[in-house]
């Protein structure tokens, strides 16, 4: 998936990781 695109490491951290970590936090806050 997305193997034809180059995602910079900083972009990964600043966008992808930040988004999924925020989603993860919401889920954990709701369920625990």
């Amino acid at each position, binding site marked *: *998936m*997305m*193997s034809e*695109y*180059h*995602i*910079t*490491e*900083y*972009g*990964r*951290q*600043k*966008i*992808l*990781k*930040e*988004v*999924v*970590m*925020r*989603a*993860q936090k*919401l*889920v*954990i806050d709701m*369920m*625990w």
Partner: protein
Amino acid sequence: MKPSSNGRGKLPEAPATPTKLPPLPLLQDISQYSNPQITAVTAASPTTTLEELAHLVRLCTYQERKRAHSRLRLQRSLVSTALSARLARCGELAHRTLVDNFRADEKKNFANLYNAIHDVRNSCDATRRYALLEPDLDNGRANPTDGEASNVLTTFMHEIPQRPRESLLKFLTQIRTNPDYLASRISSLTAAELSSLTIFHQGLEPINSVLPFHNRSKGHVSSNLRISAHIPSAVERLLSFQRHDPLSALIHTCFANSAGPDSGEDLRRTDVWATTCARLITDQKTGTEQFICSVLNVWTAMRDWSGRSSMEWYLMKILEDGAFLLEKAEDQAGTRIHVEPRNAKDSIAADEFYTAAVQGLFEVVDDPGAGGIPEGLIELGNAILRKLDPKWHHATRRFLISKWLFSVFLLNVVIHPEVVRVYFSPLFTADPISLME
């Protein structure tokens, strides 16, 4: 039924008694031994000629040979498809390790694994070319009397002495048909033993952070495991073809190749592993979470994830929409050069973007039409819940969603989408039987 000694023509003269049944032909159902056309011919004539009998005997012999031949081909096809599936799984794991090596800048490890993959590929290609030169099963038989011997598929099982073979078959039967058997044995393992069962699947768990990845230790597995067990290298993992991987052996090798979640074999496998996971949950043993996560990872890889394309679209959209976050901090190569302090306007824009992106992620996951939640999780998760007492349901659902789905699966998919499910069919297209035997 004993035939009457009076012969066919004298039957009506025999005294009719209530206990005497009418005589039946020796072969009551000749449809198994002949085709309908021949049956019609014989049924039309009151007697069977010697020529017809000879024809039936020849036909019977031919069909017996044909049946044995078809059976052999079927067995070989089953072995071939199972090995192809195994090669595809090995290729998937190797691809993931290649991505890890690339990101960690581990050039030597990358090169070693890359060369090993191409060695395997070349071996498969050579096997395929060689197989084309081999005579077909039909043509290779010079003498019809050799048919019996050549129609038997011999495997390593036939080389094992009878008693160990019976023990092995009994063991396999227990694993396959008695869910409590595997569950009781897995649940009796210590934490270290449980961890060593998943040794081939460790180091492949998602990476929680991006940049610190470069500082991870080689092999990146837990330190207690590193002391207790030999950690196979990526090349060893590939060339092992899952023969030394206990978890894969228990999930894949002990069962036939998957024919879909609704097939009898897959239902049996799911029942066995749901029972095992449920037992571990109720026993609350140390290491249970990691073990069940590994099992769920295997299940997810075994099943399709139809949400892949919508997730890909979603990721491209947030990368595009969030590009403004990177504009002031990256050079052309994507290296972070400096970060200017944000003003209030930038902060508001960033927060709005993140809120919308998180909302979008939930929409992707919560889209049953697009299959946002992996089928493997739904299948095995529901099976585990059915095995559990209701008092465990809430905690188990919480574990499956917050721990596995959001902290393992989605974390990996969103941060490292390149690692997700690729198809290696072009790589391993050759018949791999001789490679594995």
